[in-house]
């Protein structure tokens, strides 16, 4: 049986200190190859300072039909945001 090898998700950190952001996927047979392929494909133009690769099979994604159940309940919790609170006139921000 032919194979294009396993699928890996690639996360690139642009600058040290920043987030690793998902940027695409590569095919590779092992983690060393996945890392090298990610480097050769996604950082050709100085896009990276660090790379994570994760086998796609280990990514668990939330389901679209659950979106309302998962995310809508946060809509009305506006007290979690600083702008909810009234600052007395003249008080300075910390």
């Amino acid at each position: 049986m032919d194979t294009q090898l396993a699928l890996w998700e690639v996360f690139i950190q642009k600058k040290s200190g920043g987030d690793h952001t998902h940027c695409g996927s590569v095919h590779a047979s092992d983690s060393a190859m996945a890392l090298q392929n990610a480097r050769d494909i996604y950082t050709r133009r100085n896009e990276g300072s660090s790379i994570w690769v994760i086998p796609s099979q280990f990514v668990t994604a939330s389901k679209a039909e659950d979106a309302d159940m998962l995310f809508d309940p946060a809509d009305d919790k506006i007290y979690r945001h600083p702008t909810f609170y009234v600052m007395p006139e003249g008080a300075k921000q910390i």
Partner: protein
Amino acid sequence: MNTTLDIHSFQEKLDKDYNIEPKDVMPDDYRKHLIRQISQHAHSEVIGMQPEGNWISRAPSLRAKQILLAKIQDEGGHGLYLYSACETLGISRDELIEQLHEGKAKYSNIFNYPSLTWADIGAIGWLVDGAAIVNQVSLQRTSFGPYARAMVRICKEESFHQRQGYEIMATMMNGTKEQREMAQDAMNRWWWPSLMMFGPHDSDSPHSGKAFEWKIKLKSNDELRQKFIDKTVQQAEVIGLTIPDAQLKWNEDKQGYDHGEINWDEFKRVINGNGPCNKQRMDHHKKYHAEGAWVREAAAAYAETISKI
């Protein structure tokens, strides 16, 4: 699951110009249309490596050699981004390649023409990539998220491709008599096939209806073709190249060029497999895919033994 409701929310997303994401519920025809379009796009990038690859070993300077190699590598990278986008729809790259080899999936007709002289490398970069980018810019806002994101990345990377092609043409038009003739000859051979890249006239375009409704396609074939012509004619004039179309004329009313009729018989003939290089391109792809099989097997077998995954 209430399917009607899902389609409704799919439609709602489209209406609000939200991206459709892989895990979203989507009509089966939408998925099929996307797989066909994205894989055709991916195959085009990959097959497109061949006519340009034909000149890597003969590039006339170290600078030109590096630029050409980096450019063809980009095409491969773009093929890869697009395969990735397609894979999110639940089809493997294996299957996509199989469809290509069985002739079920197509690639852009333009790559069935040969690259005969160095000027062809200029013409491909300038005209073929120029045409491709007009199309790709409009696809950055296509409705399927992974496709749109791949397009954004591709457009960013491709911006140098068209320029380097134009630079080659400009340098040659500035050079010896032989070079100018070579450049004009390449122009003559690549102009019409480039116009064909946008596909049939809107009135004859069989797949466009649904593609517009689903916001996969945002601009029509003729609109995009017109945009390309208007942009390119001026660039040709600046460097002294003649567009091989006696009927080409500025139309003051539409603020664009009118052009002669495209040879649709040739278009159909090449699409149906009788272009100068159809067989050569497919044979090349099949050959190296087959020759790579033992390498892929070895890598997979080694991974089993170390079970790093």
